[in-house]
C-alpha cells in the first residue's frame, strides 16, 4: 500500500487520532532517548573545545536547538490555530493548546542557558541584546496564550479565543523582532554580534543537528501525549471514550 492510498484526513478526527498517537508515542520517546544520548555524547566528548570560549561554549548544544524550537513551535501553533479557525477541526485547536507549554518551556530553556553562557562570555547574565529581548517577548506571548486558555472555562470558546490570539501574535512576531533589533542598534552598538558565525568544526555541527533532532522527537512525543489527555477531557461525554475506558478497565 503506497502512501498515497492512505486517507490522511481520517486522522483529523480525535476518534481515530487517539489510538494512532498512542502507538506513536513509545517510538518517538525511544528515538528521543537514543538521539539525546548520541547528541550529548557528541557534545561533551567528541566536539573539540573552542579555542576562544573554552569548554563553556558546550551549553550552545542545548541553547541553540532550544531557541530554534521555541520559535518553530509558535509557528506550528499558529498554523494549527489557523487550521482550526478555517476548517473548524476540533483536533487542530487541541494541538495548538498542547504545543504551547512545550514551546514556553523551550523559550525559558533558551533564555536560561543563554544567561549561563553569557556570564563567562560577556561577564553578565543578561544583556539587552535584540535576540534576547525578542525571545523574552516570545515567552510573554506564550504565557499570554496559556493564561487566556486557562481563564476561559468553556473549552470551545477557550480554543477559539486562543487560536485568534496565536494568529495575532504570529502577525506581530516579525514586527516585534525587527523593532527590537532596530531599538537595539539605535541605543548602542550591540556589544556582541552573532552575525559573523565562526566556522564550526564538523563534529560540532553534527552534535548540534543531533540535539535538534532529539528536541524535535521529544516535542512530538510530549505533545502527542498531552493532546491525548486533551482529547479525553473534551470528548469525555462521547460514546467512543466511554467504550475505550470500559475496554481498558
Amino acid at each position, binding site marked *: 500500500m503506497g502512501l498515497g492510498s492512505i486517507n490522511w484526513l481520517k486522522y483529523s478526527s480525535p476518534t481515530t487520532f487517539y489510538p494512532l498517537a498512542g502507538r506513536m508515542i513509545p517510538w518517538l520517546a525511544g528515538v528521543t532517548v537514543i538521539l539525546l544520548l548520541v547528541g550529548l555524547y557528541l557534545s561533551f566528548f567528541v566536539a573539540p573545545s573552542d579555542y576562544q570560549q573554552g569548554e563553556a561554549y558546550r551549553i550552545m548544544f542545548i541553547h541553540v536547538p532550544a531557541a530554534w524550537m521555541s520559535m518553530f513551535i509558535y509557528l506550528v501553533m499558529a498554523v494549527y490555530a489557523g487550521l482550526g479557525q478555517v476548517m473548524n477541526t476540533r483536533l487542530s485547536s487541541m494541538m495548538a493548546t498542547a504545543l504551547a507549554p512545550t514551546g514556553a518551556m523551550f523559550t525559558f530553556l533558551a533564555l536560561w542557558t543563554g544567561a549561563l553562557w553569557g556570564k563567562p562570555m560577556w561577564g553578565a547574565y543578561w544583556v539587552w541584546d535584540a535576540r534576547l529581548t525578542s525571545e523574552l517577548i516570545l515567552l*510573554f506571548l506564550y504565557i499570554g496564550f496559556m*493564561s487566556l486558555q486557562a*481563564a476561559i472555562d468553556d473549552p*470551545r470558546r477557550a480554543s477559539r479565543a486562543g487560536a*485568534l490570539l496565536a494568529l495575532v501574535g504570529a502577525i*506581530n512576531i516579525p514586527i*516585534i523582532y525587527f523593532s527590537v533589533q532596530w531599538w537595539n542598534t539605535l541605543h548602542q552598538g550591540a556589544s556582541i554580534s552573532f552575525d559573523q558565525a565562526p566556522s564550526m568544526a564538523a563534529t560540532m555541527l553534527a552534535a548540534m543537528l543531533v540535539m535538534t533532532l532529539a528536541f524535535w522527537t521529544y516535542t512530538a512525543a510530549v505533545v502527542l501525549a498531552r493532546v491525548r489527555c486533551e482529547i479525553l477531557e473534551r470528548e469525555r461525554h462521547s460514546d467512543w471514550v466511554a467504550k475505550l475506558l470500559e475496554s481498558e478497565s
Partner: protein
Amino acid sequence: MSQTGALSAIIRMLKRDLTLAVRRMSDVLATLFFFVIVVSLFPLGVGPELETLRIIAPGVVWVAALLASLLALDRLFSDDYRDGSLEQMLLTPQPLTLLVLGKVTAHWMVSGAPLVLMAPLLGMQLGLSWDALQVLMATLLLGTPAMSLIGAVGAALTLGVRGRSVLMALLVLPLYVPVLIFGAGAVEASISGLGAEAHFSLLGAVLVLALVFAPLATAAALRISME
C-alpha cells in the same frame, strides 16, 4: 450596503459612545490622572536631577501612556457587554468591523487624546526641550490610536473572563512593544539630533496596519466571546 450607510453607522456609534463618556466624565479623568501620577512617581523614585530625568523622560512618558491606555481598555466593551447592547450590535445588519471602528475611535477620543494633550506638560516637568515636546506630542498622536486599536483585540478576547484586567495586560502589553520602541525612539532620536523621520514612518506604518487588521480581529474576537 451603500457607502453612506457604512459611514453613518460609524458616526452613529461614535456619537453614542461619546455621549455616554461625557455623561460619565469621572472615568475619563481617572485615566488622565493615572497618567499624571505614574509620571510624577518617577522623579520621586529616580531623584530630582534634571539631567537624569531628561534622559529617561521619553521612555517614562511613553510607558505611562501605555499603562494608562491599557487601564482605559477595561471599559471599552465591558459596559455594553453587561447591559446586553453588545449582543444587539452583533445582530445589526451593519458589519461589526465598522461598529468596532466607531467604538475604538470614540474610545481613543476620550482616553487617548487627553494623554496627547497632557504629555507636553509632563515632559516639561521632566526637562524636555520645546522641540522634543513637539515630537513627543506627535508620536503620541500616532501611537495612542494604534494602542487603542491593538488593545481592542485583547479587550474583546477577555470579555467576561475571570481575572480580566491582569489577563488583558498580559495579552496586550507584548503587542505594544513596537509602538513603544518607535514612539520613545523618535523622541530620543530628535533629542540626540539624529532626526525622527524614520521612526515616524514606522509608527505610521504600525498605525495603518492596526487600522486595517485590528478591527477585523476585534470583531472576530467579539463573536467568539459572545457565543
